[in-house]
């Protein structure tokens, strides 16, 4: 099957850039249910996947969509779904299943105003905590937060790579502003990109174990390879058989946790600008960070020593990076389009001598630069 990519320079919608990034990363299956403002992802997938030899299916709802991509991924096909707030709520149970069964999948959440159906056509960043804590039980999530159309493409490839490398579900947290924004995109040749595929066992191993606890990330047998495997959401042993016991639970949970703990420096990505001499830093992510950057540039013109700290990954939380920042600045303003969520892990991890200030927004729009600038000025003089 020939593979068709649209290389070079584009003027493309953010949601569509996610699709192109996913296909470049090797995604060949998408299951989803349409929802504003994420629908352009499904729509483009529906005609792009056949062009690269993949398959698209519109499911009856988001619960089934999540189940379908887990199933497809166990069949060895890189898989993705895309939704927005209410749809993510429905996917949560199966996100836990993907984590427990260690199945690589990518979930895109183009955030909109909530709770409930909220504001379908307007933006928000209020699903930050849901991304991390939404499913039940102890689990970890890797969440990328793009802020440009180019990053929608680039971070989608990173998300697939991380999910394949760590055998885990990975989330992309976009929002309505980014998803429906059309801007410059450059699509490079596949050869110029790093694309990671999951480790699979060699054929015919006699002692292959799907959940071999001697390995941090055991190679994943693909359905049809011939290995007899068992996958379950129940606590399981190295073979994958249910073992609902204190001992098995501790062994499994600790290994799953360690996948993240031992790879934090490989996963976490943050960006700092104008922080070299800064006394104040504004911490932010996603579309909001563009407004912050504008405000920081204006404040710099007025000789205010302020910088920007941008989360490119939100989860796992960059604990050390925030601690390090908090030792260099006297104040951190946390600007986010919710009523104060990311401020909590910032507070928890910052040096106690650094003052942490919330700049919340109830949603529907990102902050205007002058609102952020006003806060910077207030904090610079107090």
């Amino acid at each position, binding site marked *: 099957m020939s593979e068709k990519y649209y290389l070079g320079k584009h*003027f493309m919608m953010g949601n569509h850039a996610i699709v192109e990034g996913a296909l470049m990363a090797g995604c060949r299956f998408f299951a989803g249910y349409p929802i504003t403002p994420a629908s352009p992802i499904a729509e483009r997938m529906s005609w792009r996947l056949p062009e690269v030899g993949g398959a698209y299916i519109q499911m009856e709802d988001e619960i089934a969509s999540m189940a379908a991509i887990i199933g497809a991924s166990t069949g060895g096909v890189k898989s993705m779904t895309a939704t927005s707030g209410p749809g993510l709520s429905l996917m949560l149970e199966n996100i836990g299943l993907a984590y427990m069964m260690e199945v690589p999948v990518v979930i895109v959440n183009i955030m909109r105003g909530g709770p409930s159906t909220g504001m379908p*056509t307007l933006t928000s960043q209020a699903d930050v905590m849901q991304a991390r804590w939404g499913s039940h039980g102890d689990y970890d999530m890797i969440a990328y937060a793009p802020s440009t159309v180019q990053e929608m493409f680039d971070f989608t490839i990173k998300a697939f790579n991380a999910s394949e490398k760590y055998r885990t579900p990975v989330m992309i947290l976009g929002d309505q*502003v980014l998803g429906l924004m059309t*801007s410059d995109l450059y699509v490079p040749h596949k050869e110029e990109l790093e694309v990671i595929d999951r480790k699979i066992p060699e054929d015919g191993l006699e002692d292959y174990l799907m959940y071999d606890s001697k390995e941090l990330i055991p190679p994943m047998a693909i359905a049809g390879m011939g290995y007899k495997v068992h996958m379950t959401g129940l606590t399981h042993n190295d073979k994958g058989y249910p073992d609902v016991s204190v001992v098995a639970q501790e062994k499994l949970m600790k290994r799953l946790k360690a996948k993240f703990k031992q790879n934090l420096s490989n996963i976490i990505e943050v960006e700092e600008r104008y922080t070299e001499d800064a006394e104040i830093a504004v911490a932010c992510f996603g*579309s909001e960070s*563009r*407004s912050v950057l504008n405000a920081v540039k204006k404040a710099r013109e007025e000789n205010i020593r302020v910088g920007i700290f941008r989360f490119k990954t939100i989860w796992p939380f960059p604990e050390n990076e925030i601690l390090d920042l908090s030792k260099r600045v006297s104040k951190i303003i946390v600007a986010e389009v919710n009523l104060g969520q990311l401020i909590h892990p910032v507070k928890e991890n910052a040096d106690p001598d650094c003052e942490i200030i919330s700049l919340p927004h109830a949603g529907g729009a*990102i902050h*205007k630069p002058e609102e952020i600038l006003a806060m910077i000025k207030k904090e610079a003089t107090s």
Partner: protein
Amino acid sequence: MRFNVRFAGLGGQGIITMGLAIGRASSIYDKKYVIMTEAYGPEITGGFARADVIISDEEIDYPLIEHPDILVLMHTDGWERNKDLVTNDSLVIYDDFLAKVEESGNGQFFKIPSFSVGNELGRKVVANVVMMGAIQEITKIVSKEALRKALLDLVPKGTEELNLTALERGYEIGSKIGGKIEA
């Protein structure tokens, strides 16, 4: 140099297409930094529709428009929703049949018979293309070569000639008005 351009009208008039064509022309062919954002009502046609295009020589941080330098109106609804944003420096370019605009107070106003010309050409739907031609001549925010190429990238096969004719008619109307703006 940075231009904030807002296209406003109703769903079905090709408002988003205008944003896409001028945005694409500026981005791909004029090699500027461009961001387009869009907003529309839930109706398939007839609801409000808006496309905002920022064209800049520098990388764009804040992606939204507070005050348009250029406001393009294809319907009275667009004027009602945006008239308070017009400043003394704004150019308001509007369809003389579909948009009722009170030309008092702030801004510079340009009346364009885009709907009538579209009608003359036999297809009302090309009114937006006539308008784009006029915008190009009046504002020079995009080059003619780039706009032509971007338009041809976007229009359905078999309609190229009609669309280019509409664009030419827009140029003629715009050139009679003239008035390159200084940013």
